[in-house]
């Protein structure tokens, strides 16, 4: 098992209100899986994805990745973990406006202290993989939404991560561009990448190998899709 979530709980506290975003989540994901998480807005999908991506911490419970309990790691160790193991794709692409597409993708490698020549080579490969190489020197604002999301996928895969997390990757795209992005994700999964994707689209969820439905901070259904 690549990932094990044991009794994960996430509370948000403000001065007067305590909100439970995740309630006693138990989930195991094997290596090479493609899991789609679905559910209505506010059910805790993105919170779960953030915890899986270690950019948010659970209030209670254990998050085991491989052999390691990530809830025990400090901030610096988590940063190192993310560098080496994770790739992200966001609904709103989250590219940095001031950097070119090439520089945005390279950013994922910069924190690995990789030599520049190797970085450039890997960036070029990643851009080719999502057919965005001709836009390398453009800024995000000069690209269409579909192109920006392909660039974001290139950034997610350039570090050859063990896990790709995609938060509504097609949410801001039209049908055609959404289909292209799903093709790429499926292709990556076929090549062995483990992918966890939050989506509102049942048809895109059906393209995953497994589907997890959430409601009110809990997992209510976890089924394997027929291939």
């Amino acid at each position, binding site marked *: 098992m690549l990932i094990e979530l044991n009794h994960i709980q996430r509370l948000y506290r403000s001065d007067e209100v305590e909100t439970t975003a995740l309630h006693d989540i138990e989930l195991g994901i094997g290596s090479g899986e493609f899991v789609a998480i679905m559910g209505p807005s506010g059910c805790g999908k993105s919170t779960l994805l*953030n915890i899986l*991506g270690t*950019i*948010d*911490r659970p209030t209670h419970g254990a998050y085991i990745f491989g052999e390691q309990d990530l809830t025990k790691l400090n*901030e*610096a160790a988590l*940063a*190192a*973990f*993310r*560098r*080496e193991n*994770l790739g*992200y794709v*966001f609904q*709103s692409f*989250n590219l*940095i*406006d*001031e950097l070119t597409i090439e520089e945005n993708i390279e*950013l*994922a490698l910069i*924190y*690995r202290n990789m030599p520049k020549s190797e970085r450039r080579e890997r960036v070029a490969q990643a851009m080719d993989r999502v057919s965005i190489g001709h836009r390398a020197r453009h*800024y*995000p*604002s000069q690209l269409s939404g579909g192109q920006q999301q392909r660039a974001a996928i290139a*950034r997610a895969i350039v570090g050859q991560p063990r896990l790709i997390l995609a938060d509504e990757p097609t949410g801001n795209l039209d049908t055609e561009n959404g289909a292209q992005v799903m093709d790429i994700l499926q292709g990556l999964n076929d090549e062995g990448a483990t992918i966890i994707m939050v989506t509102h689209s049942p048809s895109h969820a059906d393209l995953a190998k497994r589907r997890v439905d959430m409601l009110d901070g809990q997992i209510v259904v976890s089924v394997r899709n027929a291939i």
Partner: protein
Amino acid sequence: MNVSMIVAAFLRQMRRHRLYTVINVIGLALGLATCVTLGLIVRYEFSYDQWIPDADNIYRLGEVEMIGGRPSERSQAPFALFDPLKAAFPGISHMTRARPAAVTVITASDVLSVDATFVDPDFLQTLPYPLLYGDARTALSRPGQIILSEEKARAYFHTTDAVGQKLTVDHDGHKTDLLVTGVLRALPANTTLQPEMLIPLDSPMLGSEVFTQWGMVGGYLFLHVDNPSEARGIQAGMAGFIAAHTPEEVRKAGALRDLRLRALPSLHFLDGEIGDSTASRNAVLALGLIGLLALLSAVINTVNLSTARGLLRAREVAMRKTLGASRRDLVVQFLGEAILLAGCAAVPALALVEVALPAINALGGWGATVSYPLVLSGMLTLIVLVGVLAGAYPAVWLSAYDPARVLAGSRMPNMGRMGSRLRLMLVIVQFSFAIGLSVSALVVLRQSAFVRDLDRGFQRNGLLFTPVIDDVGTPSARVALMDEFRRVRGVTAVSDFYSMPGGNGFSTTDYFAPVGAPEQHAYMQWQDTGRDYFALFGLRLLAGRMFDDVHGEDDRLHESAEHSVVIDESGARALGFVTPQAALGQVFRKEHGRSTIFRVVGVVNDVRLGSARDAVRPSVYFHTGQPVRFMSAGVRFEGRSEREVEGDLRTIWHRMAPDVAFRPLRATDLLSEDYRDDEKHGQLLAMGAGVAIFIALMGMYALSSFTVARRMFEVGIRKTLGATTGRVLGLLMGQFLRPVLGAGVIGCVLAWMAMRSWLSGFDARIALSPAYFVGVVVTAALVAALTVLFQTLRVARAEPARALRAE
């Protein structure tokens, strides 16, 4: 868009964004106050002598002589020029000599030393100072008259109408009752020559060598012409005049290179003798520049904060446009807001000017006043100017927002990049100025300290002088006085001498040549010395011997064909001797006048009595067994406090010379004139640098609070991709420190150029060490880092999920 809507929008912005408002108002108030205060100082400095009627047709004549191989213009000139000049240039309508000299005023209750000015009868026709009482045509027409300043008249006669009163004045041992024939109206502080008493020159004085010898500088020469073209004609004819009238040896030695006419209003900015009340035009202009740059720095803050906040107002702009506002309406709104902001800053700025001006006046010895009609009209102009400067770019930029894109939620990265480049550039300008100013202040203050502590070749501590003791009485009386001084406990040496440190007292130069080598012209300072002079000043003997009583030929007052002299190292070189030893026993003589031969019996180290700006003059020391005219007395003491020794000296003085004022001077005070102005300028530069840095840091703090918050999203992405807090912190800090370091390079280059030029005006100067530049840049970077550290750290430590939610 009407005014009330602009005001309403402005007030809403002020309430909502308090940090932005406070920083802008404080910055602009400081900038405006600095600009107005220094503007008033500059105006004051440029107003010198402008009040005098026909000031532009009044000129001072100064001689240009070669000192240390370079031409040096003096404020004074040889009085031997007076009659030949008048004869040669009929265009001179009036002309006067003005010789400053200390006199003793004896009243019923006191004996006082006063600085008098001895002048020709034409003085008030040449320099038309207004008289409160008396007739300008006759008040100085005869010897035995005196004109008093309003202050002195009141002090001596308890009334300003002192005409007809008698005043007992002792000068050079001649006690005379002078008739008060006029009282000068109190002169404005911005007057170059401020006489306390004017006394007509009398025959004994006019017959003295100071008035007849070319090698002697007697004082100031002023002349009045009818129009500027006359002055140009006189200046053009000066070379011919010098060739026709100056003795050949004077011309050959380059001692009188040229004579320059300087218009009265320009005198304030000419380098004069030490002690002359002059200012450096560049230093004054630098003050004006500092004021303008401080204001510019505050304007930069406003522009930077407006553009940085642009995104926050994007939605407002979009909504206004959607609701029908034209681009012009928006430009008017934003310009109006900027002008209102400057207006808000003007109120505290005026209060700051009122508080700061007296302090700045006290520091610089200025008399600038806040003239409200002028200051208010100036402030109003500045408010509009600052408003337009600060508001123009944000107004044009903000009003260009595309409402559809803004309301659709997409950002405007191109505008953002342009804005951030502009901000970067402006921050570089701000810090370049602040760093350049700081380096300059540091160098000026270091140089002032260097001049203060400069090894002048003599011991300055424990040294008291009483200038020009002629009034004490006969030479024997003066010797007796000095003998009494020697008996004071703690006194180790007493001597009389001619030239005082700091350029005070008298200075005589002459032309000498070794016997057998007449082509070796040596232009040397003549120093008459009494017994123990070398011990008094603590000079080191490099070869030979000092003067003593055993060798009768040492005393130049003894009739003899040969006299012993001691020269200094520079003197030995000027006479063509390679080493001090080589000069021993050598003989030389004056190039003109008597044919007395001088034999070198000793060589001492060089002494710098004059300014650190001028090269050390070669000196020749003569020994006089008794005090001659214009000699001062000096006392060296140790083991007792200065006050105790001075008290004892005063008691002796009052016993032995009851009719003469005792006026002790400290060597350290006399020398302080050499660096006081520079120290003052250094302090003003440092204050300017402090204001500039404070404004720049305030701007950086506010800018960091906006931009760091704006980069929260980026920080989220970077941390999601594995960046540690340290890396993010480094990235964000780098964003702020890079422009500071870039500005450091620009500021240092500018400061290096300015300071190299300034230091080149000094003969004795510090090296322009890289430590000054590195020190200032590192300090500026550290202070800037501390300024932005807290906010940067807060964002860098944010959890990535929270940071991404911020978007």
